[in-house]
């Protein structure tokens, strides 16, 4: 049985339905990310788990117990907010101790637990500081310690890294993941940053317009997107419009190139249009590249991006981008140059809407 279960959750604000029939089962100790663009309903689902919003329909249960009728302060859930939300009038120690004091724990137990939590986030030397005397990253770590101190059943993270600068964001996400693994706490993480979601999650829920478009491991989400939305939202993707040449042989035409797909085209007939996707990192210009397929196109532009060189080429009206690793002797392809891009037929994904 799953630890955190969301069954047929719906949520409407007035006439607008922001969450539509949302189902999800999360195992104990699992780290699940809700990924999606702004307004897709991910934060609303999180707020319903927290009890800040009540579902219009459906049930939320934790460890088999229905949470719908419980108030926020009865749920024993920890939450870290985007805006830190530390109490400005309290020191770091008092902030972390707040949940334990409210629960009426003995003074000695509070002291031990707070020290333990501050050691966990490596800020035990800042126990007497006030939030305004700390950096954003430090404040967010304190917020994490405060959320974990009362030993919650579930930890909710509402875009906790989005207010931080890039370097801190990367180090803090690794720290969050490490602490989560160490404590084995079931965690739901909301983000609109795909890299964040891909790097730290056990599973990702890609949300769009109030629905879960796809639920899967980071690898499944990235390599085998189920829908056009997931394919375009997660990572950079070339969507290529092709024409079916031979359905039985799974061959399609892209410009003047005929390529074979590994995935069956299904019930399509000769001449039918089909959308196929190709990741920029799938192709290679090298003749020795491992690949059974090639397409020829004209270079439109080429950009040096540091670790990679991204080149855009035109293939029968489709603009296809591909990446090459940077090397000291790498030469940027010039506009107008004709290039042959090699890749495996398995790299093509058929895009379904």
């Amino acid at each position: 049985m799953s630890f955190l279960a969301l069954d047929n959750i719906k949520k409407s604000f007035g006439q607008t339905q922001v969450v539509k029939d949302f189902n999800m089962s999360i195992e104990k100790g699992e780290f699940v990310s809700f990924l999606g663009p702004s307004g897709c309903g991910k934060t609303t689902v999180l707020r319903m788990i927290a009890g800040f919003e009540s579902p219009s329909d459906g049930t939320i249960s934790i460890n088999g117990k229905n949470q719908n009728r419980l108030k926020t302060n009865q749920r024993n859930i920890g939450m870290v907010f985007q805006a830190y939300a530390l109490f400005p009038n309290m020191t770091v120690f008092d902030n972390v101790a707040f949940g334990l004091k409210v629960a009426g724990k003995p003074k000695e137990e509070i002291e031990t637990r707070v020290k333990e939590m501050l050691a966990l986030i490596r800020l035990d030397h800042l126990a007497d500081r006030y939030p305004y005397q700390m950096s954003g990253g430090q404040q967010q770590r304190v917020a994490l310690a405060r959320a974990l101190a009362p030993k919650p059943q579930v930890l909710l993270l509402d875009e906790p890294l989005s207010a931080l600068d890039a370097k801190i964001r990367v180090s803090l996400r690794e720290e969050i993941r490490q602490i989560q693994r160490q404590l084995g706490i079931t965690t739901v993480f909301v983000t609109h940053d795909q890299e964040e979601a891909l790097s730290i999650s056990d599973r990702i829920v890609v949300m769009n317009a109030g629905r879960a478009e796809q639920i899967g491991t980071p690898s499944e989400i990235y390599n085998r997107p189920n829908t056009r939305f997931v394919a375009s939202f997660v990572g950079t993707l070339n969507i290529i419009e092709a024409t079916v040449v031979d359905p039985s042989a799974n061959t399609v035409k892209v410009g003047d190139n005929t390529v074979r797909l590994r995935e069956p085209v299904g019930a399509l007939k000769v001449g039918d249009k089909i959308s196929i996707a190709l990741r920029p990192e799938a192709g290679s210009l090298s003749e020795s590249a491992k690949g059974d397929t090639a397409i020829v196109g004209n270079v439109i532009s080429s950009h040096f991006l540091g670790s990679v060189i991204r080149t855009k080429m035109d293939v029968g009206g489709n603009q296809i981008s591909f990446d090459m690793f940077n090397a000291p002797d790498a030469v940027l392809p010039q506009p107008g140059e004709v290039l042959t891009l090699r890749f495996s037929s398995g790299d093509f994904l058929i895009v379904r809407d």
Partner: protein
Amino acid sequence: MKTQKILAWIAIAIGVIYFFVPLIGTFEFSLRMRRGEYSVDAYQSVFSDMQFRETFGFSMVMALLTIIFGMLLVVPTAYWVRLRLPQIRPVIEFITLLPLVIPAIVIVFGYLRLYNSSSWLPFTGSTSGTNALLVLSYITLSLPYMYRAVDTAMRAIDVRTLTEAAEILGAKWPTIMLRCIFPNVMSGVLSGAFITFAIVMGEFTMAALLNRPAFGPYLQLVGANKAYEPAALAVIAFAITWFSMGLLQLVSRFSKMAPSRP
């Protein structure tokens, strides 16, 4: 550029002269009670006057009660409007501004019609009732300042997220209000309190028409019957106001509870 600077200094000088000369004149006059030399006789006379102590004490008590009950009304209202009813914010702002638009004399006449001894709620039927009505009328008068001071302090601390953070940690409403919200809007509460104190100490209309022995009517009485004491009282009244303003500045400067924000 130089001309502009000179003009600016002239404007400042005119302002300073306009404000300080009457004040210095009043202060100087208050020291002239003893013929031919400066003395603090007028102040001694004022401080030794029993009526001064009584009216000053009465107004102090009224000011304290106004601050306590005003805050009990304003803090939860401002909190609730920010948290749950942001759509009625313009209505609340309008209501709190009304005392600036409606003259105090109109308000007090309204009170006398509504709460006279033959009405359904006869506040003016007893001394304590009239005192209560006076406190309520002072709360009304100080609403524009109190509400704004508290509301501004709440704007600085993201009340909604702090409330949610406390709630998810298991806190109930009284704990949230007393330990998470109130201490963080204390600078606003104190600012409102000092302004209220200054207003109540000098208020005349309400106290005079409700016939209460407050400091404002006493100032008027002394002014009509004595020569040097009114000047001393005016200086004392200014000192009280400035003291309140000074405390207000101090509170806002030394408030270490800066908001925790990205």
